């Protein structure tokens, strides 16, 4: 998985609790992305980062926030988890803007009860 790790790999949490997912890369790639994958939907972009402390919203950003304080780490936070955020979350990295070859992490399966 191209030097990308995600933690935790599985998590069950209750509605209303905060949750933070971590993506860590060892490739020194500039761009990092968070996607969610749900049945009946393709991967959907939540947020992405184009550098340390530089982030932007994706297609489905409501209810999520992100932070990137170091090149290698990109955090996704659900401030108050809802059942609709039950999903598999993937982190991806790429070297250059418009370099469409993204490398994906192994995913985090999140269940909100």
């Amino acid at each position, binding site marked *: *998985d191209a030097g990308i790790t995600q933690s935790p790999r599985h998590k069950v949490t209750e509605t209303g609790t905060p949750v933070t997912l971590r993506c860590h890369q060892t490739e020194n790639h500039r761009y990092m992305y968070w996607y969610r994958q749900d049945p009946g939907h*393709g*991967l959907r*972009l939540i947020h*992405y980062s*184009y550098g340390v402390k530089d982030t932007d919203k994706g297609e489905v950003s409501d209810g999520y926030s992100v932070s990137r304080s170091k090149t290698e780490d990109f955090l996704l936070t659900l401030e108050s988890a809802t059942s609709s955020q039950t999903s598999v979350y993937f982190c991806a990295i790429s070297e250059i803007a418009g370099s*469409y070859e993204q490398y994906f992490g192994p*995913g985090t399966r999140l269940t909100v009860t």
Partner: protein
Amino acid sequence: GESVGLHLPTLSVQEGDNSIINCAYSNSASDYFIWYKQESGKGPQFIIDIRSNMDKRQGQRVTVLLNKTVKHLSLQIAATQPGDSAVYFCAETSGGNQFYFGTGTSLTVIP
């Protein structure tokens, strides 16, 4: 909004046969297309890409065809092997960091 779809949710092929997986898109401004392979429990893996100024591109055992007139692309896998069993999906972008992904076709290779 964008929509990227796949014609069939499942496809079964005999080992050694060729596989064809199709994808339709709706945004005529899309200028870059990608095919990914996703094995069970893993993240997507890049297979091949094609720019809108091309209509065909070949890789190792894979070929992508792009028909901009009907907004359709296909992935052809030659001599399909059991290791090719996975979900395949297309993605497109009209530039920038917003990518739109299809829902996927599950390919099963029968030994």
